[in-house]
C-alpha cells in the first residue's frame, strides 16, 4: 500500500501517453473510456488509502528509494487526502460528462491535469511541487480552448498570468534554496526559523513572492481577471474542474507552505482575513451585475474563495474547520452549478440570464439542480453550504470579529439575489413554448448521473455534517495539533 501515492500520480500519466497514441488510430472513439478507466483506478486507489489516513496515519513513498533530504518524497496526509479526494471525484465526473462530446487528445490532457493535481498535493519537495504545478497549469491553459473563438484569448490571458505566477513562485523557491540549501519540506520546516533570526527580510521577500503567485492562481481580488474569462468560455466539464479543483490548488499550497511550514513570528492572519474579505465583497458585487450565466458563476467562485480565505485568516481551529469544509462543499456545489448551467446552455443555446426567461425547452432536472445548487451556495439549512458558512461565521463571532460575521451574512443575501434572479428566469411560465418547436437536443442520461452524484453529495454532507467533518479532521489536526 505504500506505493499507492506514486501509482495514483503515474497511472494517469501513462494512460495519457497511450491515449494520445490511440487517438491517431481508428480506435479513437475509445479514448474516453480508457481515460475513464484510468481515472477510476486512480480514484479507487485514493479511496483505498482512506481508512488508514483517517485513522491518523501518514503514507510516505520515496521515489527511487532515495531517503528524505536527497530524493523526492511523496507523502499522503490528511490535507493531501482531502484535496486528492475532491480532485478524483471532480475529474471522474468531468470525464463521464465529456464522454459523448469530446474525443482523442482532450482526454489525455484531462489525465495530465489530474496527474499534476495529485502530484502537487502529494509531493514533499518544493521544486517538484513547482514542476507538477506547471504540468497542471499548461494542460489547463490548453483545455480552456473550446469551439468558441473567444476562448482563445481567454486561454492566452490565463497563460500570461499563470506563467507569471509560477515564475514568481520559482524565484521564491530559488531564494529559499540559496538560504537553506534544500528543497525538502521537512528539512525546510526546521531551517526556516533559524534563518528567520538572521535574515528576516529574505524570508519576507519569499513570502511576498509566494503570496502574489498564489493570489493570481486562486483568483483573489486584484489578480482575478483571468477567472471570469477562463471559467465562462471553457467547455462545461473544464469550468467545473477550474472552479472546483484548480482554484483550490492555490489555497492548498498556501495552507501547506504558510501554515504547516513557515511558522515565523510574523502573523499573516490579518492580511489573509482582509484579503479574503475584499475578494468576497468584490466577487459578490460583480456577480450581481453579470449578464452571462457562466460569468456570474465565475464571480461567485471569487466570492467563495474569499470566504474560504476568511476562515483561514481567523486563525482558530473552528475557522480552519469551516474553511476546509467549505473548500470541499464548494467543489461539490460549484460542480453541480456549472454542470447544470452547461446543460441549460446546451439545450437552449442561450447564455444570457435575461434570455433564459420563459424558456420551456429547458429540461426539468437541470433547472431543479440549479435551484438546489443555488440554495446550497447561499447557505440554506438542509444543504452542505449552510454547515460550512455557519462554522466560519461562528469562528468569526468567537474571535469577536462581528463585522466579519455580519459581512459574511450580508453577502449570503447578495448571493441569494444574484442566484435567485436566474432561478426566477428559469422557472418562469413558458409562454413561447407552443410557438417554438421543441428543438432541444435530448441530454444523455449519463450526464444526469454526474449532476445527481454531486447533488446527492451536497444533500448527504448537509444532513450528516459529522461525516464531512470526520473527513477533514486529520487535515485540521495537521495545522492545529
Amino acid at each position, binding site marked *: 500500500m505504500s506505493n499507492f501515492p506514486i501509482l495514483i500520480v503515474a497511472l494517469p500519466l501513462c494512460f495519457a501517453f497511450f491515449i494520445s497514441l490511440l487517438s491517431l488510430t481508428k480506435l479513437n472513439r475509445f479514448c474516453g473510456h480508457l481515460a475513464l478507466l484510468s481515472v477510476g483506478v486512480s480514484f479507487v486507489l485514493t479511496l483505498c488509502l482512506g481508512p488508514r489516513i483517517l485513522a491518523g496515519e501518514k503514507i510516505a513513498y520515496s521515489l527511487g528509494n532515495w531517503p528524505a533530504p536527497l530524493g523526492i518524497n511523496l507523502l499522503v496526509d490528511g490535507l493531501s487526502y482531502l484535496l486528492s479526494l475532491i480532485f478524483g471525484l471532480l475529474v471522474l465526473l468531468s470525464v463521464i460528462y465529456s464522454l459523448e462530446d469530446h474525443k482523442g487528445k482532450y482526454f489525455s490532457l484531462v489525465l495530465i491535469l489530474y496527474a499534476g493535481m495529485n502530484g502537487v498535493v502529494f509531493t514533499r519537495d518544493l521544486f517538484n511541487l513547482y514542476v507538477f504545478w*506547471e504540468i497542471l497549469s499548461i494542460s489547463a491553459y490548453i483545455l480552456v480552448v473550446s469551439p468558441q473563438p473567444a476562448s482563445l484569448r481567454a486561454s492566452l490571458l490565463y497563460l500570461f498570468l499563470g506563467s507569471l505566477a509560477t515564475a514568481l513562485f520559482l524565484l521564491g523557491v530559488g531564494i529559499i534554496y540559496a538560504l537553506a540549501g534544500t528543497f525538502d519540506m521537512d528539512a525546510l520546516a526546521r531551517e526556516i526559523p533559524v534563518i528567520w533570526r538572521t535574515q528576516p527580510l529574505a524570508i519576507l521577500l519569499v513570502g511576498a513572492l509566494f503570496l502574489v503567485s498564489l493570489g493570481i492562481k486562486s483568483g483573489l481580488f486584484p489578480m482575478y481577471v483571468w477567472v471570469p474569462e477562463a471559467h465562462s468560455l471553457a467547455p462545461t466539464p473544464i469550468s467545473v474542474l477550474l472552479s472546483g479543483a484548480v482554484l483550490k490548488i492555490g489555497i492548498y499550497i498556501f495552507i501547506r507552505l504558510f501554515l504547516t511550514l513557515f511558522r515565523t513570528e510574523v502573523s499573516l492572519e490579518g492580511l489573509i482575513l482582509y484579503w479574503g474579505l475584499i475578494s468576497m465583497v468584490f466577487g459578490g458585487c460583480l456577480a450581481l451585475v453579470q449578464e452571462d450565466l457562466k460569468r456570474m458563476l465565475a464571480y461567485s467562485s471569487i466570492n467563495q474563495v474569499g470566504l474560504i480565505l476568511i476562515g483561514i485568516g481567523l486563525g482558530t481551529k473552528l475557522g480552519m474547520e469551516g474553511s476546509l469544509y467549505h473548500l470541499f462543499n464548494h467543489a461539490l456545489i460549484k460542480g453541480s452549478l456549472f454542470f447544470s448551467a452547461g446543460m441549460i446552455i446546451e439545450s437552449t443555446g442561450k447564455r444570457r440570464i435575461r434570455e433564459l426567461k420563459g424558456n420551456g425547452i429547458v429540461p426539468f432536472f437541470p433547472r431543479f439542480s440549479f435551484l438546489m445548487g443555488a440554495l446550497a451556495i447561499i447557505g440554506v439549512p438542509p444543504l452542505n453550504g449552510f454547515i460550512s458558512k455557519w462554522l466560519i461565521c461562528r469562528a468569526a463571532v468567537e474571535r469577536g470579529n462581528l463585522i466579519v460575521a455580519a459581512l459574511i451574512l450580508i453577502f449570503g443575501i447578495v448571493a441569494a439575489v444574484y442566484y435567485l434572479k436566474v432561478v426566477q428566469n428559469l422557472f418562469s411560465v413558458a409562454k413561447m413554448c407552443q410557438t417554438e418547436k421543441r428543438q432541444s437536443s435530448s441530454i444523455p442520461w449519463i450526464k444526469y448521473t454526474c449532476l445527481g452524484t454531486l447533488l446527492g453529495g451536497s444533500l448527504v454532507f448537509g444532513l450528516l455534517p459529522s461525516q464531512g467533518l470526520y473527513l477533514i479532521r486529520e487535515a485540521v489536526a495537521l495545522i492545529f495539533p
Partner: protein
Amino acid sequence: MSDKIALTLFLIGLYGLIAKKNLIKKVMGLNILTSGIVLFFISLGYEKGLTAPIMEKGITDVVDPLPQALMLTTIVIGVCITALALSLIVRIYRRYSSLDVKILTGEGDE
C-alpha cells in the same frame, strides 16, 4: 555579479510582460523573465575554482550540481509555454487580424 544580471533580466522580462502592447513581445518578455530565473539558479550552484561534480577519486571540491539539473526542467517547461503561447497567438491573429493586447480584454468580440 551574475545574480545582479539575473535580477536585471528578470525585471526587463517583467517590464516586457506588463508594458508591451504586442502579444509576441509579451511572450518574449516571459522568456526573458524565465531566463533571468534560470541564470539566478545557475549562479547559486556556481563557485569559482571548483570542478565539475564527477565523483572520482581525488576530486573533492565540486560545484553544487542540483540547480543545473533543475534548470534543465525549467528550460523545457519554458519551451512548452512559449510554443503554446505562440500557437494560440497564431490562431488569435487568424481570427482578429491583430496582435494588439486589447484583444485580451475582449474588445470587438461577438
